[in-house]
């Protein structure tokens, strides 16, 4: 297994010394710090002596203009995943390095495994570091230490982010295996991201409005409309990810109950225990993890069978 480690180490060195890493890191730090600033200025208005999870507000409070940290991170994770995966195989192929490397006595999968692991490690470091920085600043400025449950919730949050990033990385590696040009693979990955993130919700609403027109004010129809739109938008992993992290980081959150829609103004809810929150998002987590595995497995199989020519 030394060959996987060798590839892994080299890829990691490449990532850390690359400009794209520095640029992404800077972007994410700026986004993270600005959202922390917003959270800190607004935290007094939101937190009351009753809220048991003040520390988590650092990540979830939105300002008037600036979004919260979780909004930022759900936007950036696909970008990080795509950036560190889109040229994994095809750039090596085009530069003529791949046939040279594969003629060394190593199993072919060492290359793709090492690259995927190095990408995931880089992603984990980026996300974990900004979360820890925010936690540090928060600890210093609000003066309330996190409870053990909050620490666990932050840990799960990081884990979900890594799996979600793994999905995007797997997808972009898949394109890097199947497409010859790096420009084509990055554009395809970004096109899919834009579609799933921005257009799918619009399409979902349009379909829902077509089937259950919102003009019909009956509650049954309203619920039906909501259910259709919601089910369709759940095709997108970004919807699943958004649901998962908002339930993990906002303990009072639960999956939306459409039966309560328009009937009663939802009263402030009691926070769920971590176990209950996890049960709520379990399906989302399983789907995100399996999507990541499926994408990587497909690229793995294609890569193993591919013929590597130097020209």
């Amino acid at each position, binding site marked *: 297994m030394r060959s996987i480690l*060798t590839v892994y180490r080299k890829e990691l060195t490449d990532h850390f010394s690359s400009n794209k890493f520095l640029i992404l890191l800077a972007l994410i730090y700026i986004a993270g710090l600005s959202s922390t600033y917003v959270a800190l200025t607004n935290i007094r208005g939101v937190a009351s002596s009753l809220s048991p999870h003040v520390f988590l507000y650092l990540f979830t409070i939105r300002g008037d203009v600036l979004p919260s940290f979780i909004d930022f991170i759900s936007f950036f994770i696909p970008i990080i995943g795509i950036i560190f995966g889109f040229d994994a195989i095809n750039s090596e192929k085009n530069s003529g390095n791949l046939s040279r490397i594969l003629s060394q*006595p190593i199993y072919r999968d060492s290359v793709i495994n090492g690259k995927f692991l190095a990408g995931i490690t880089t992603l984990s470091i980026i996300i974990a570091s900004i979360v820890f920085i925010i936690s540090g600043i928060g600890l210093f400025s609000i003066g309330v230490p996190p409870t053990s449950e909050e620490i666990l919730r932050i840990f799960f949050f990081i884990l979900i982010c890594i799996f979600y990033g793994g999905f995007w990385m797997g997808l972009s590696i898949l394109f890097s295996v199947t497409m010859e040009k790096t420009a084509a693979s990055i554009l395809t990955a970004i096109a899919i991201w834009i579609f799933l993130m921005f257009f799918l919700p619009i399409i979902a609403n349009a379909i829902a409005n077509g089937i259950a027109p919102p003009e019909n004010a009956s509650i049954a129809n309203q619920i039906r409309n909501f259910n259709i739109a919601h089910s369709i938008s759940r095709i997108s992993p970004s919807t699943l990810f958004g649901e998962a992290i908002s339930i993990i980081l906002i303990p009072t959150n639960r999956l939306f109950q459409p039966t309560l829609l328009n009937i009663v103004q939802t009263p402030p809810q009691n926070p769920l225990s971590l176990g209950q929150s996890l049960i709520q998002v379990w399906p989302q987590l399983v789907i995100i993890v399996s999507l990541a595995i499926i994408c990587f497995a497909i690229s793995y199989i294609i890569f193993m069978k591919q013929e590597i020519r130097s020209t």
Partner: protein
Amino acid sequence: MSDENNIIISKGLSKKYNEHLVVDNLNLAIEKGEIFGLLGPNGAGKSTFILMATGLTEPSSGSINVAGFNSTRQPLEVKRITGYLPEKIGFYNDMTARGNLAYTAELNNIPYREISKKIDEVLEIVTMTKKKNQLVKTFSKGMKQRLGIADVLIKDPRLVIFDEPTEGLDLKVANQILQTILDLNKQKNITFLLSSHQLNLMQKICSRVGILSKGKLISEGTVENLGRKLFGGGKYRIELELEKVTDTLIEKLKKLDKVLNVNKVGNQLQVICDKDIRQDISRLIATEDILITRMDMKQDALEEIYLKYFKEE
């Protein structure tokens, strides 16, 4: 020829791409310690043959063995002893020559403490010691090719497969590369399989050649033997351009010692013979009172062989 003497043995090797046969029932044996030239035009199946030999692609039928290991089923064993230099060799441009070689050394499981020594050793062979810490992106094509040789030598190969070693290099650099190959063959007893369409360069160093066309091996043997097959035994070919050509002259030329055949093309004559008899020929023509405007001699002209085989298509 017993199997022990051969390093590469292919039996009934075929490769199909979408029903198109690229390598067609190829039976080829390459002996230990020789420099074998695989010649043929682009698309003849040379690269595909090499890919199958290194286990980078699977044959559609037939088998290929390298040093007793099946390239398809035991690619790791084959790659451990085989150095392969692809046609378009690439290095990591943002790494130094040393960094690139160290990566290869690690992939070859060379112990960490020996890597440095090994790199110095192989860079010495290709005379690039001074460029050790330069970034590869500053290297010329010829330097990359030399670095490529250093790269395959890291693993102490018994066989080196070199796809188009002189492609895109100027003559001086190409000759340097060929000289290095020759030295390595003699000093380290490394077997070389070279593929090329640049015949004039190949015939200088190849002990045997095989000519490949449309996936089929048309002919193989020493350059000299291939010449004999083509020119009916002649080893030399003397080309004459004369002021005029008379039938009596042709008759007299044919009667000269060692002359095998005389062909006439316009004002040109081709004399095929087993010995360098230019003196005899010029003396004869002088007695006929004919002016010689040009006289050329070609020995073992691989290019002629090559043209001949490809004209026949």
